[in-house]
């Protein structure tokens, strides 16, 4: 984790997202890139189409104000940390804001972003937009929940474990981060009796592999009444970071992310590290 890309569009230039980036960068001695994509959110919220015929979005008054706010936020967060950082403004004109963002994420070890509680785009849900980034970039992303007093801790990390390709990918991508946590657990929820042994075996192998990276991990299968999502959410609430594989099914043209992923993306119980 030597290059950490953090979303500083004004909606996200909140202390919690920046705090998470600064803490992680400090642990890894990483370079932080504060990314501001012109009108990414304007485009998502539909304002883009209203303004673009008249004013070039890069120079519109609101845009200039926001950009200045974003640069100020990243400077304020990093100026006294001794870490190397930069503010990067990327214009999306004339390409699609999502493509521009994804191209930037591919140039970083990890992308850190937040949840936009004011999301009001009917065409694209927020989890869909985040899903597109995870899928398109091929890089892991960390989503920091909306908590104004968020103070990153490195005590417990939980891995949602099902032995699948996506899940394993997330774990390997997270290795440089896992080593900073005092306690690491692989957690499955309500495993069928028939799958129990296979699940335990895959977990044991993963734990061995993590051990060779000097990460001590344990495995636990939680039996929960009610939905798996609820149980996983509870695990998240008690963790400082949660690692998840992002699952999706391709159904015709539509891309539907797995139920767990969508639920967690919509309101993360703790910072969530996702990859696929």
């Amino acid at each position: 984790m030597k290059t950490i890309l953090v979303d500083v569009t004004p909606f996200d230039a909140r202390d919690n997202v920046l705090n998470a980036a600064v803490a992680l960068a400090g642990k890894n001695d990483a370079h932080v890139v504060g990314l501001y994509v012109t009108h990414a959110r304007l485009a998502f919220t539909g304002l883009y189409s209203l303004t673009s015929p008249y004013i070039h979005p890069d120079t519109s008054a609101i845009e200039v104000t926001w950009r200045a706010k974003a640069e100020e936020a990243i400077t304020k967060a990093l100026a006294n940390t001794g870490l190397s950082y930069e503010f990067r403004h990327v214009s999306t004109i004339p390409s699609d804001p999502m493509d521009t963002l994804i191209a930037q994420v591919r140039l970083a070890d990890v992308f850190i972003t937040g949840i936009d509680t004011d999301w009001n785009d009917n065409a694209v849900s927020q989890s869909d937009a985040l899903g597109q980034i995870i899928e398109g970039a091929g890089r892991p992303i960390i989503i920091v929940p909306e908590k104004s007093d968020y103070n990153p801790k490195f005590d417990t990390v939980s891995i949602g474990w099902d032995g699948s390709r996506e899940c394993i990918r997330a774990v390997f991508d997270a290795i440089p981060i896992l080593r900073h946590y005092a306690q690491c657990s692989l957690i499955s929820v309500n495993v069928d009796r028939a799958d129990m042994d296979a699940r335990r075996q895959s977990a044991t192998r993963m734990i061995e592999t993590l051990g060779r990276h000097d990460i001590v991990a344990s495995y636990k299968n939680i039996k929960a009444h009610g939905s798996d999502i609820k149980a996983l959410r509870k695990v998240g609430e008690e963790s400082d970071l949660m690692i998840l594989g992002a699952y999706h099914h391709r159904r015709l043209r539509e891309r539907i992310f797995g139920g767990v992923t969508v639920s967690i993306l919509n309101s993360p119980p703790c910072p969530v590290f996702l990859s696929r």
Partner: protein
Amino acid sequence: MKTLLVALLPDEDIDTSLDAAITIAHKHGSHIIGYMPIPGPILMPVASPMTMVPFDDTMRTRFREMLPTVKAAFEKRMTTEGLSFEFRSDEQTSLNLSLGIIAHARTSDLCIVQMWQSGGKVTADSVESVADIVMASGRPVLALPSQTSRAFAYERVTVAWNASRESARAAFDSVSLLSKAAEVELVWINPQDTPSGNVDIAGAEIATVLARHDIKITDNPISSPSKAGPAIVEQAIRNASDLLVIGAYGHSRLRERILGGATEYILRNPPCAILLSN
């Protein structure tokens, strides 16, 4: 690169694969898992009552017979080298050995396999199984050409980049190997043809990001009249590379995996060992 899975198939020269694993293990302090899949029998349905009976068991019998020899050869090499190792073997339900390799590759940092060459070209079957392993395991795969006079090394490495998801995956998945290389060249064939490619800076951005991982890297955007596949192979040969890192492009259409043109070309005509990721 702390856990390496080496696929050991009795028809291959297993020393080629073991040499590569040993080279990496000495540099990274890795544990080596030697894995030999045993194929299942070919089954034939018999009516009334509907059951499956073994029809052709020759492959399975032959592999079973070879098992002790392969295991002994593996253990002897590992002991001589003083490396941490384990041997695994299990029986598959079909003739498709890739399935077993995929299952064991998933929890390994790197999976090492061979590409079967005939007359210099890698066979279509072999390309297909390598692609299968890369796509289904989600782990980087080191594919070694079977007919090579050179010992495996990763001193001089060429990394193919084109700003795509797969090339990002391959570049980041190979970071720990690249950090031990003497010279890494990032090659971008015809950046002007990529919609998101800013020709002026082409590979400079990703080269800077990789350099933060202590990788000695230079970027080299190349304009070439040929297609990406042949151009990448030519450049790797020109660089006298030991290793070529590429993203594996492909998707599955129903059961069939369809490889991208460049990936397929490079796998068919490998100039050296290839590290793939998807």
